[in-house]
């Protein structure tokens, strides 16, 4: 065995804390190590070239690179050693940056630890054997979960590239949060005007299938071959017959909360969220329907000209296969009422959320765009906006910035002046103004100067009603004094959360999420739309709060990643999977019992004699069977028991 060890300086990232030259020198004393070097940046072109040269000159058959995390550069170096003719799996990374130099200050201790980490990697690399990938056929259909602007953009890009796309949307229409917005910053163009044509494109595109009022129930399989169970929720209306005429909605006698209008006004038990809904189909909220609750009514059934109402409808599970999945589950608005008791917990009528105000401003909203005080219907003379409600506030468990509120508040402030007149007093309470996008800062300036919106730097401490007004009490930190404003209307710039159910969906997809339910990207900088599960990609606010331009950009990025993935006809599978040594198998079948993927099967090796066999293309390489097999006759390639034990032993050698 001829092992080469390369201890990376990573500039000063590693060399600043670890004496890399000394460690490389010492590595030469290890058994089988015939070459050791300490390149400045091993991942750089000269760095990789020096590794390849050493492989050829020193006839290395195993390589250890001690550098950053394998999550960072394992793929890079596997490709590098492969380029020099070595099997890429005869390579091991020792993580002496993230796990050593970056977390220690004591140079001597860090150097000693790096030395041990390298010894462990050498111990492991000795146990490695060449591995070879298999190729599997891939399904080229794509699932897009979520029909907001992110899902729409991704679906259209994918469909235009010639791939068949299914959009699964939990509401009865696509459109998402953007469909609720009035205007968009900083251009003040109408949200519906730019979105609805794209919604229609989705409905009409020959490569797109819309599955609205559906949810993902179960996901199995792996990149290139996912099997997804989709729950088609019972709308109690046969959508093949429904023509979206809304007669049922007009005649329905039962009121129900209107999610689309954020609870401003009620809708009916049978409803169509908004006039431009795609598909424009009615559904019954059974919890509010008189027929379902009281066993009387059936008005909708009688008035429907298409005979579409079907009270017997049941949820259906539809199974489909996909090669890749784009998650675009979007966002939810922070429920400020539950947290901000100092703002009246939602009991003060003239205190509303930003999204509610958006519906109020909207010409197709419940008030036809008439801005008024919910308490008495009068046009407000003084409007106060409060930023960072449910953002940058650790006391409510939301330390992050929701990224869009500064801008949408400015937009709404401008629109207030536009709707109610320039003489309307408009105040914005803010902590900082974050206006980093193209044209954003200029927009804020315009709102402040041209429209005369008064920005007050400080937090609002209390909102309360007095003499028919909402008293806004806060502090102006620039002047260092208390401020009190008697407002007619207060709009809270409530922050953004991950959509309800995002965490549960992430669990079904085996992808990571953070403590707030935002889905985790593969790498914050280099793999922003990938996830750690191959074949699953992210688009939009499900990953983190972001505005429409960023959402659309990410959706297109995710689509292009999918196109790249599915451009191949076959996919290479990881060879780091479980393999059964059948001569030692005692046919106890515990492996079959525990495998999450049903990869092991009973294989008849001689008539009547069965042994376990792992199906290569099904195995995902988790190793649960390996730890369960009592005879240890299953080995996990790349993570064999001996490789693990040798690392443990090496780490403990005195």
């Amino acid at each position, binding site marked *: 065995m001829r092992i080469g060890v390369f201890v990376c300086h990573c500039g000063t990232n590693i060399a600043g804390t670890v004496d890399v030259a000394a460690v490389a020198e010492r590595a030469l004393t290890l058994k089988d190590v015939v070459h050791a070097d300490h390149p400045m940046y091993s991942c750089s072109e000269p760095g990789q070239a020096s590794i390849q040269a050493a492989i050829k000159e020193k006839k290395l058959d195993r390589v250890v690179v001690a550098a950053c*995390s*394998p*999550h*960072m550069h394992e793929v890079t170096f596997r490709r590098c050693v492969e380029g020099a003719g070595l099997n890429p799996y005869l390579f091991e990374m020792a*993580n002496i*940056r*993230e*796990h*050593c130099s*970056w*977390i*220690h*200050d*004591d140079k001597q*201790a*860090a150097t*000693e*630890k790096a030395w*041990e*980490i390298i010894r*462990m990697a050498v111990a492991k690399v000795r146990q490695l054997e060449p591995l070879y990938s298999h190729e599997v056929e891939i399904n080229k259909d794509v699932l897009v979960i979520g029909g907001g602007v992110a899902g729409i953009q991704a679906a259209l890009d994918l469909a235009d590239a010639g791939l068949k796309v299914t959009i699964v949307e939990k509401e009865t229409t696509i459109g998402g949060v953007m469909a609720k917005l009035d205007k968009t910053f900083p251009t003040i163009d109408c949200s519906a005007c730019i979105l609805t044509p794209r919604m229609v494109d989705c409905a009409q595109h020959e490569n797109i299938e819309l599955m609205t009022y559906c949810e993902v129930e179960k996901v199995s399989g792996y990149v290139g071959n996912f099997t997804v169970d989709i729950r088609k929720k019972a709308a109690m209306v046969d959508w093949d017959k429904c023509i979206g005429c809304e007669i049922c909605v007009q005649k329905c006698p039962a009121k129900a909360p209107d999610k689309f209008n954020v609870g401003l006004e009620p809708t009916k038990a049978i409803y169509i969220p908004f006039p431009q809904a795609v598909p424009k189909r009615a559904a019954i909220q059974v919890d509010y329907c008189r027929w379902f609750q009281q066993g009387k009514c059936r008005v909708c059934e009688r008035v429907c000209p298409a005979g579409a109402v079907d009270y017997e409808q049941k949820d259906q599970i539809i199974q489909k296969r996909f090669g890749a999945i784009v998650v675009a589950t979007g966002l939810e608005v922070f429920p400020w009422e539950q947290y901000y008791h100092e703002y009246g917990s939602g009991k003060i009528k003239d205190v509303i959320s930003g999204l509610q105000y958006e519906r109020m401003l909207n010409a197709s909203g419940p008030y036809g765009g008439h801005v008024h005080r919910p308490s008495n219907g009068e046009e407000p003379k003084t409007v106060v906006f409060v930023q960072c409600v449910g953002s940058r506030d650790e006391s409510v468990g939301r330390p992050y910035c929701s990224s869009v509120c500064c801008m949408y508040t400015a937009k709404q402030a401008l629109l207030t002046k536009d709707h109610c007149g320039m003489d309307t007093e408009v105040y914005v309470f803010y902590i900082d103004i974050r206006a980093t996008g193209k044209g954003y800062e200029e927009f804020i300036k315009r709102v402040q100067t041209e429209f005369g919106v008064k920005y007050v730097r400080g937090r609002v401490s209390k909102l309360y009603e007095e003499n028919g007004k909402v008293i806004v009490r806060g502090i102006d930190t620039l002047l260092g004094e208390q401020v009190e404003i008697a407002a007619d209307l207060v709009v809270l710039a409530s922050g953004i959360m991950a959509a309800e159910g995002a965490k549960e969906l*992430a*669990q079904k997809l*085996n992808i*990571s*999420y*953070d*403590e707030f339910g935002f889905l*985790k990207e593969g790498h914050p900088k280099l793999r922003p739309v990938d996830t*750690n*599960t191959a074949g699953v990609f992210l688009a939009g606010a499900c990953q983190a709060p972001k505005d429409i331009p960023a959402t659309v950009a990410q959706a297109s990025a995710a689509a292009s990643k999918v196109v790249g993935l599915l451009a191949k006809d076959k996919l290479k599978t990881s060879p*780091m999977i479980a393999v059964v040594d059948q001569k030692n198998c005692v046919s106890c079948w515990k492996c079959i019992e*525990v495998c*999450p*993927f049903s990869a092991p099967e009973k294989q008849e090796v001689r008539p009547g004699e069965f042994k376990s066999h792992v199906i290569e293309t099904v195995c*995902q*390489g*988790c*190793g*649960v069977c*390996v*730890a*369960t097999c009592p005879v240890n006759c299953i080995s*996990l390639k790349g*993570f064999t*028991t001996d490789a*693990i*034990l040798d*690392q*443990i*032993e090496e*780490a*403990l050698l*005195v």
Partner: protein
Amino acid sequence: MAERPVKIIGIVCNWCSYAGADTAGVGRYKQPPNVRLVRVPCTGRIDPLFALKAFEKGADGVLISGCHPGDCHYSEGNYYARRKFELAERMIHHLGIPKERFRWTWVSASEGQRWQQVVTEFVAAVEKLGPREGRAL
């Protein structure tokens, strides 16, 4: 002569806790240098005997960490694992190895700070007991 520093073997899953330790590194969350990590794909891959083997070979502590329940990259590995680790913890104590020397927990890929906390606390607990010398296992 000063006591030798304690040596702890950490066995972590690739997707969550190894990545969580990476996140801790990226965030420069400082930690004591006593832990040596062995990367495995999933906590389900971990045979509790690895921990016993580590004690046999002289480890002063063993730390096992993986994805939070519900978050397993392979959906189910950690559900099997937590049953095994719970028994392992109890049996290790039955062998006269103090409970404080064996810890198993969950740290996700985004929990860099939590990783720092887990390592710091565990190392402190093991240091309190000191190095293990001349034991039956």
